[in-house]
């Protein structure tokens, strides 16, 4: 009985940790996106619209 209880507690803790890590990851990703927009691109620097290996 106590084993089942501790298993449940462990599972709940693990789910909470996972959820927190997921939230942190999203926060970090969105922050990195903001930083990407802060890059100083030259006004005439071309924009790639696909993998730039070959013109199509």
């Amino acid at each position, binding site marked *: 009985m106590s084993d089942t209880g501790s298993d449940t507690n462990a599972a709940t803790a693990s789910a909470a940790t996972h959820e927190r890590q997921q939230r942190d990851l999203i926060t970090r*990703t969105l922050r990195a996106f903001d930083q*990407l927009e802060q890059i100083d691109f030259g006004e005439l620097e071309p924009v790639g619209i696909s993998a*730039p*290996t*070959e013109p199509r």
Partner: protein
Amino acid sequence: MSDALPLNTATELVALLARRAVSALELTRAFLDRIQHLDVQINSYITVTAESALREARRLDRTRGRRGPLHGLPVAVKDLCATKGVRTTAGSRILADWIPQFDAAVVERLRAAGAVLLGKLNMHELAYGVTTNNPHYGPTRNPWNLERVPGGSSGGAGAAVAASLCAAAVGTDTGGSIRIPAAACGVVGLKPTYGRISRYGVVPLSWSLDHVGPLTKTAEDAALLLAVLAGRDERDPTSSRRRVDNYRTTVRQPAKGLTLGVPREHFLDVLDAEVRAAFAAALDTFKQLRLRIVPVSIPSLPHAQTAELAIMMPEASAYHARALRARPDDFGADVRAFLELGRQVPATTMVAAQRLRARLGVECAAAFERVDALVVPSLVVPAPRIVDQAVAVGAETLDVGTALSRNMMPFNLTGLPAVAVPCGRSAEGLPIGLQIAGRPFDEGTILRIAHGYQAHTHWHVQRPPLGA
């Protein structure tokens, strides 16, 4: 003899088949027996097509006249490659009942070359993740340690090749999904140049980043497969018209005298100590082989992973938009979270990412003025445990997805060819790998360097203890 047959490389098996030292049927049976005995533990296959494989092997054994380059070779494909009459799930519940009425271009090419299709390989759901902890078909386990992930998203392919459950496999790579499992499982994984292999009939993740390529035991095997898979396909608008090189000849040419560049930025910044030591040892080997090693600078590399995400996430969300609206509960939790987040990426961020992508391409082209290839570590850590959500890398703790894809994404963003090759073992016996990346459409050179390395090292001939 049959029990040991699957342990051979694809190149060795093709030679045995060509001189009729073994029949396609005998070889196919040997692989199917091995799958039956070992895949209960590894779970690398979603579907095994035993009956049709045996039928095809018998047919090939009866064939007279011209034989294809893979005549009688048993192979398998990631379960997002459409296969006529065979369920193609993409590792998802969304496509659990899809039975295509056509073959993907790569499946057509494998069949035309005489390969025998053993089945469809497990993968991270919809190729959107790097662990192959699949909630619908069960996790694939790393043959070197069953408590570890095989990497992903082509985790079934990496595990099946490492465990000799197929002679070679085809996977896909949007953010490292061929090279991550290759590195984690100690095999070779080639992401060719964007447009080199047709993606017709392959379930997309992100149109401008998706690549198809082989996972094999050796660089020579990768050349064998690439020679079959590469080429123009009118049905894929991104498919290249460029001439296909003779990779099987090029791969055997000496690499001596070539120059390898090691980027100063990004790739060595966050690295497990054992990976760093194995990479340093590999550089020493290259020097002994008379390759020159020089530092190069590619200043935009630190932004590449973010730029890749800013493109991949909205593209993936756009592709799966209808299913996400209609059947949100049929997605696994991690994939659903990323698909929902992808809808929130501002268009201005995606444009910044495209500009960064262009800039990175220019910087790489400048580096390739000085060097023939780049050499960098593959995974920054050996394969994490299946239960891990995060891993410690030196002083940093990274979520598993960020850690495993960190050194991969620059080559998806630029579309440059890159091959992952085993180059060591951790103290726990887990594979460690390096990557060699080349100029656009110069797969021949990177395979040649990889083959030269493998001719002087033994990492690629080691097999996992499981039933070996």
